[in-house]
């Protein structure tokens, strides 16, 4: 009997299709999360590229991390991960705006 330890790698999952099912009221022009200007992103900030459950974070061709918060689920993961580095400004959307869970 053999014990295998390697994991099967599946093709990367796209999150956009999942977010498509959600309802949002976007507060245009008032993003509730901002990435502060930076030269080189910390490991914590870079980890958000895969840790954010809504895939809001991406890296541009200069290597800077950017956020498009429209699909944000308002979980707070990025705020906690980057609290020690201070690279993110995080507030809740204005009352009534943001994700609107039909089921939750």
């Amino acid at each position, binding site marked *: 009997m053999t014990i295998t*330890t390697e994991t099967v790698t599946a093709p990367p999952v796209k999150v956009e299709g999942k977010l498509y*099912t959600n309802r949002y009221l976007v507060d245009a022009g008032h993003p509730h999360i901002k990435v502060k200007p930076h030269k080189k992103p910390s490991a914590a900030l870079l980890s958000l590229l895969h840790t954010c459950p809504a895939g809001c974070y991406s890296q541009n061709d200069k290597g800077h991390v950017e956020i498009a918060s429209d699909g944000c*689920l308002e979980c707070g993961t990025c705020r906690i*991960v980057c*609290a020690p580095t201070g690279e993110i400004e995080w507030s809740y959307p204005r*009352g009534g705006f943001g994700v609107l869970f039909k089921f*939750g």
Partner: protein
Amino acid sequence: MTEKFDAIVVGAGPSGNAAAYTMAKAGLKVLQLERGEYPGSKNVQGAILYSDSLEKIIPDFREDAPLERHIIEQRMWMLDETSVVGMQYRSEDFNEEKPNRYTIIRAQFDKWFSKRVREAGAVVLCETTVTGLIRDSHGKVIGVKTDRVEGDLFADVVVLGEGVNGLVGQQAGLRRELTPDNVALAVKEMHFLPQDVVESRFNLKGDEGVVIEAMGTVTKGVSGLGFIYTNRESLSVGIGCIVSDFAKTGATPYGLLDAFKSHPSVKPLLAGSEIKEYSGHLIPEGGYRAIPDVYGDGWVVVGDAGQFVNSVHREGSNMAMTTGSLAAETIVKLHKGREDFSKKNLAAYKKALDESYVMKDLKKYKDIPNFIHGNSQTLFGLYPRLLGQAAQSWFRVDGTDKRTKEKEILNSFRKGRSIAGVIGDAFRFARAWR
């Protein structure tokens, strides 16, 4: 609004609703603030409702609360890539007059609870985000700032039921920042299926329901849990892992969810479903050691904001309601006795918590989060694999004699973990569990 309230409650989840309801019912002038369009629109849970904690607040809740299915069966699964080793408990005894646990859909349940809160006399203001606390010159909390025009609101006491990502209390310095190793991130999808399909797939009749909880290689060797809960005509399907582990493994939350959904034992249960929502939420899992100060001059903390979650038993909503009502009872008593809401007087809330199951359970499991997190590769990777292989060897009839099979199984554990390692794990687990 310049009028002053007896109490302001921040948040309209289970803890805030329990607090607002209890205080309003006792005749206090209560204002409750909720940032969502309606109560529940920002709230996410698996979700299981534990009757006991709600029954103590609203004894007749079963009459009109939006309950999905009462739970008669629990399956605990240990997964490797191709197999499940599991334990199942199903009992006709759970088909009782007043069932103990129900599946619920939070957006609907929270709306119902909020209606009860308003009927009890509280003012509920939605689409209002609380942005800070207002203190007097002695540092006592006397109200909250909101994002409404002329949004300063005043009360004798503020109840913070603002949830796990509680910015108000955290930014006011009432508690430390959450750390990525003390909090789990869970994502969930709502899978809709016809009612009769849910019932036939899960062997159910009427309003009966099943809970499946799964651990193992599906979280890639880090601590985490997948779940499937049966609702009336949908399944709540999700998975959660400790936040700091996502950074370590490079896995995405939605990637783990899809891997769980495509496990050969899960996939057939979901076949043909229509997904109508994808949500994500944090769960405070630091346990007893992570509980912050829960009271001070003019304020108390209830629910997830106070880290009241028993991650071993996956209980949180019950603790939210219990802590909300215990805080409210303390406030009502002080109000009726015309005493002030000083830190000294509000200490009665902590005393009530200590005497309740909330603190007793959290204290019992105080070492479990560290144990699980420190041994995650073994608990969530190695053991599920070893057990799966052992079960397969045991059940496969292939001409190999049983003594040789036993020897092979023992050797696989010896090779994988060493006998001393297995005994050590058991010992450490027992010590943490005690």
